[in-house]
């Protein structure tokens, strides 16, 4: 399913999107994804683990390490994604070297063949993205860009021009990870970044309350990762609690 169709559907219902991130291969990814979707996740970001994740904080780093230790690799990743039977857009989030090594064209094809319709690469700024963007377009995949609180001027305009699917607004300067304070800069960024592409806010959101305030500030969706991964890491009633948290957050987006 294409991301834009999902956002149109949500807009019709005046809902914000819950975009859930988990790292593939940490725990039973099939069960985890089903629980998230059952709880109300509208889009699922499936992390493809990389050995040196510089944009991630301790929670996701640890998840990536567990997935790598359990033997996850790009071949297994695409096999697993192909077998997932869920009716929401799936997005791959990974670092550029894994894409580069597989070959940009091959990677885009593998995404398309396995049902992935979006790619997020946290270490690929627009300046370096031209070639991958070409293969994404050919394969019907959105290349999703990040906008940071300090992205301004002509660079911001450039990103707005290139962005498809949704724009990933980073709520604060820093790495991924749950935070009690989803910074004030969120509202500032939302006010500043005007575009027709849906805007989703991520980095730090972990509760329904935070999601509600971001939604009220004008976001079209929220991205939640570390809070779900904390549950996966605990090993306690994982699917039940994932579904409950997804449902709590989703209900604050209606």
């Amino acid at each position, binding site marked *: 399913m294409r991301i834009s169709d999902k956002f149109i559907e949500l807009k019709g219902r005046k809902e914000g999107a819950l975009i859930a991130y988990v790292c593939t291969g940490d725990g039973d990814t099939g069960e985890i994804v089903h629980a998230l979707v059952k709880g109300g996740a509208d889009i699922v970001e499936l992390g493809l683990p*990389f*050995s*040196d*994740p*510089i*944009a991630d*904080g*301790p929670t996701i*780093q640890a998840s990536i*390490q567990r997935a*790598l230790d359990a033997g996850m*690799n*790009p*071949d297994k990743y695409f096999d697993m994604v192909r077998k997932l039977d869920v009716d929401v857009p799936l997005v791959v989030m990974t670092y*550029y*070297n*894994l*894409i*580069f*090594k*597989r070959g940009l064209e091959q990677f885009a094809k593998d995404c398309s063949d396995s049902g992935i319709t979006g790619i997020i690469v*946290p*270490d*690929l*700024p627009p*300046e*370096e993205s031209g070639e991958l963007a070409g293969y994404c377009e050919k394969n019907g995949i959105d290349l999703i*860009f*990040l*906008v*940071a*609180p*300090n*992205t*301004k001027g002509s*660079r911001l305009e450039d990103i707005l021009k290139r962005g498809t699917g949704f724009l990933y607004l*980073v709520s604060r*300067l*820093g*790495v991924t990870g749950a935070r009690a304070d989803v910074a004030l800069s969120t509202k500032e960024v939302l006010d500043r970044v005007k575009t027709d592409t849906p805007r989703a806010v991520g980095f730090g959101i972990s509760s329904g309350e935070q999601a509600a305030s971001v939604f009220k500030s004008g976001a079209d969706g929220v991205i939640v990762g570390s809070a779900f991964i904390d549950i996966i890491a605990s090993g306690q009633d994982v699917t039940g609690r994932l579904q409950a948290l997804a449902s709590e957050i989703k209900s604050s987006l209606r």
Partner: protein
Amino acid sequence: MNITKKGKFGRFGGQFVPEVLMPALEELEEAYERFKDNPDFKKELDYYLRDFGGRPSPLYHARRLSEKYGLKVYLKREDLIHGGAHKLNNTLGQALLAKYMGKRRLIAETGAGQHGTATAMAGANLGMDTEVYMGAKDTRRQRMNVYRMELMGTKVIPVTSGSQTLKDAINEALRDWVSNVEDSYYLIGSVVGPHPYPTIVRDFQCVIGNEVRQQIMEKEGRLPDSIIACAGGGSNAIGTFHPFIPDTDVKLFAVEAGGSGLKCTDKAALHSASLSVGEEGVLHGARTKILQDPYGQILESHSVSAGLDYSGVGPELAYLAETGRILPVNAEDSEALAAFHELSRMEGIIPALESSHALAYLAKAADSGELGDIVVINLSGRGDKDLEAVLEKVGQL
């Protein structure tokens, strides 16, 4: 010269970093362009390099070594620079740049602790808060360097993620910078990382090659036939080589750590020879030659010398190796150790284990004639820091 606007050396280099860092890199590039030729900045840097760092370093004719190998060997004595290595050339330059930019805090990564120590020196001297990330494994292996940094007021932060070594320390320094870009300056330790770092660090290290050029002309009235330097990230190598790149008669040898042989296991390489046998990839913000598995996961590297123990190499070196201008070669742990002992005994100079790789290549190649008649070896550092590691190794032999 080889550099295009976007910081590429051929197809190598570039800026593969999180969006948050792009504005910071832009700011850094602008500041560097503004200050690098500023007379006050240059005067101040020259002053620190001379009166604090001890520059210029001598070019020493190693007489006994020359006799043994049947050619004229000169050693560029970076081991005599304050702190015992070439690292201070870069840290003084960048710390001063940070100061001109109005930053109050320095962040750095370190492997063995050499770059961390040089950063601590510059930070203390210029009165800046300094925090150094160091793999937890390395903090245990290099306790004395941790203490040296702490003595100078630097906070050393052990990194427990990943393999707990240099590459993870770089990851963590980048994460810190992402969170604190507004008041902090990331002082990277070699010609690696995203543009403009490979260019900035190279420019600050070119003081080595510029001095060599002048000194060899004074002593010999001509350029050397070859120059040898060890290459980890590649900063002492490119700093020595760069002023000679147009002089195509001068052969430039970059000696990588051959470790215990140019082989790999599933998770790790037994060497650090990314230039010689690495594959193209993207690590720490740059497209370059790296050690990776078939999926693109970064492999841990190995070398007896902590300063060469890195899975990547500077993008400009990758480019120059591909064009054939520099020649990547390697020396294994055992060869470096032999050279370490040889220089100590024959010349009364205890070299750093990193620099011992450059010396080892002299021993390997002297007979072949490929080095010519006059060779300059960059002695990038002194070996006092390595005595414990050498004792341990010799015990094992």
